[in-house]
């Protein structure tokens, strides 16, 4: 029984690590623009697709052959393949490249959506960017479906062995990497100059502007960081579940948004806490109560938390100003 509980906790923490990474994207944007970025779940999806694309370019013989046939100057990839797939160092390097390129490209995609879909609406009523984001989400999902494929298998890169309690290399990798990223982001926002600028912007945009902070770059940066973290989670999801699909972002998106609210939206540590909590609740609910009702249990807990703490776990309750 003990074994079983710990195994379920491991499942929950792994899932929670991914939720936390995605939830950060929601909470960052919300903190600064007070906007629920519905397109964020598609950043997660895009990250998975781009990551798989890069991975296949580096390690898949058939894909390389097809690409080189069209773009001969990429022929060097074919010779690098044995290095990437053959040795441990090559493998680590390949993972770094995959995550790096995917995070940067997805971050740029996030900045693009901000520039063209949200910035023109910055002074519009609050629900406008929400609907615009929804439009982007629909667009990106259909673009992936129509222009790429509805689902593509993701090769398993790490060895499958169980260290006990269901602790496998992939789970260690996901948990450790997400904890590192969460720690780095937390330090980044609380100690660096740019982080300060971000906090200042979220407190009072106009005042921050008057203090010489370039609001537009801060917002653009926010829209880079969030999607980049989402992309990392997207590749995790691909590696962990073994597939990327055009609609893979939908449920993790809802759950992570829930996690962000659970922790107190706009609050970075709240998003992390909420993400891990939600993952664990889901795993335990599924393992001990009913796999069919696991989401019901998660949402019921969320509603109860919000009724007793209307600002989320780490957020302060709303102050009414009279």
């Amino acid at each position, binding site marked *: 029984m003990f074994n079983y509980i710990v195994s379920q906790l491991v499942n929950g923490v792994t899932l929670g690590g991914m939720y936390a990474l995605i939830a950060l994207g929601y909470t960052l944007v919300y903190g600064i623009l007070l906007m629920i970025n519905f397109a964020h779940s598609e950043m997660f999806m895009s990250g998975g697709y781009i990551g798989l694309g890069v991975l296949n370019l580096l390690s898949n013989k058939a894909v390389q052959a097809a690409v080189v046939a069209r773009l001969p100057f990429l022929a060097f990839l074919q010779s690098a393949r044995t290095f990437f797939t053959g040795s441990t160092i090559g493998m680590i390097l390949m993972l770094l490249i995959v995550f790096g390129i995917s995070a940067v490209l997805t971050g740029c995609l996030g900045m693009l959506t901000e520039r063209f879909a949200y910035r023109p609406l910055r002074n519009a009523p609050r629900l406008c960017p929400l609907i615009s984001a929804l439009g982007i989400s629909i667009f990106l999902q259909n673009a992936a479906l129509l222009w790429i494929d509805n*689902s593509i298998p993701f*090769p398993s890169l790490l060895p499958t062995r169980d260290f006990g309690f269901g602790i496998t290399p992939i789970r260690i990798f996901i948990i450790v990497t997400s904890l590192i990223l969460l720690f780095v982001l937390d330090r980044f926002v609380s100690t660096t100059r740019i982080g300060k600028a971000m906090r200042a912007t979220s407190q009072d945009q106009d005042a921050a502007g008057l203090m010489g902070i370039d609001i537009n770059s801060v917002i653009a940066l926010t829209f880079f960081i969030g999607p980049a973290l989402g992309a990392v989670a997207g590749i995790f999801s691909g590696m962990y579940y073994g*597939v990327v*699909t055009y609609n893979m972002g*939908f449920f993790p998106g809802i759950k992570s948004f829930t996690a962000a609210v659970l922790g107190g939206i706009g609050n970075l540590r709240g998003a992390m806490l909420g993400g891990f909590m939600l993952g664990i609740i889901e*795993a335990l609910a*599924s*393992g001990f109560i009913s796999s069919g009702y696991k989401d019901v249990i998660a949402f019921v807990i969320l509603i109860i938390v919000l009724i007793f703490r209307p600002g989320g776990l780490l957020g302060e309750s709303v102050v009414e100003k009279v």
Partner: protein
Amino acid sequence: MKKSMKFVLLALVVLAAAALVIGCGGKSDSASTEGDTTTGKTTLTIGMGGPLTQGDVAFGQGAQRAVQLAVEDANKLPEVTELGIEFKTLDGDDQSEAEKGVTAANSFVSDRSLVGVVGHFNSTVSIAASKVYNENNVTAISYGSTNPDLTKQGFKTIFRTCATDDYQGPTGADDAIKLGFKKVAIIDDSSPYGQGLVAEFEKKFKELGGEVTSKQSTQQKQNDFTAVVTKIKSERPDFVYFGGTYAADTGAGALLTKQLKEGGVSVPVMGGDGLYAADYISEAGEASEGDLATCPGMPVELLPQGQAFADAYKAKFPGKDIAAFDAYAYDAAQALIKAVVKVAQENGADKVTSPAGKEAIQAAVAASSFDGVTGPIAFDENGDNTNRVITLYKVVDGAWVAQEL
């Protein structure tokens, strides 16, 4: 008041535009029929409903190809050309969702030249759409919906060529016992197909003395099965029975088997026809090795006309694999075409689409009796195919192989 005035005007413009478009539509249609009369041809449409862009696309697109093949074959037949008939297909993409299926069904029945529908695949969709077909007196032959309820609704217009889950589920249980399995963990995918299939399986498996360690269900379109896997691992079953389809984007079979094997549950997954697709193996990779699936019908190579069908299919669609229900879709189209030809011979080609013609098509389909690709085709009083063969398949070296037990 200005705003509302504008709005009223706008509404009128929209309606006028719609009317205009319809008018043009009518005109272009009549133009084509006039053109047809000069060449003496009557174009008749066969609807092809299934998941074409989303959902279980392997079964939808495969059937789409099979129906196209059947229609092209039919158009070459001398009795069809003599009657001056030309068949064409109309696609209806239901995306494996009931509501989209009802919309597709309505678009089919909107077509004046429609003689019948081959479809749909998912049981939810077929059941929802069947009400539309029944109301509009359109004959619909499902090629892949195995939930028994579809033909138990008392609709005279609904048929199917594949065998149902009240045969498939128990056969699966039988085969599992024969393979020496005693303990099973059951999972369904919260779809009517999955829930129906596991119910039939469970009943028979318990009857035969098997033990069910747990019953769980997964949510549609979700891909995290790790908690389910951990639970199954703690129960140590001999195999896992999954009621659902293969497709990863609907959160199902391929993902489950992959996560089971990676989670250290190295027992085979067994399922129904929904798993029996080449995509299941390509999406799950090595994890699918040793998995089992029951499926109505026999392997194409073993069918009486199977080789001819496979050759024609491969010639027409090079590089495409034949999916599990393609032969059934071909037979469904054949049943429909044969019925239409019969009605046209008796009443004249121009009367086929009249209300009386539609009734005659139903009667003719109900009286079908011919040797199809999948074996002899004939329908019982419910509209189910009387030929109910179920075959067990196993993944061996990355391909489905039929098993003799």
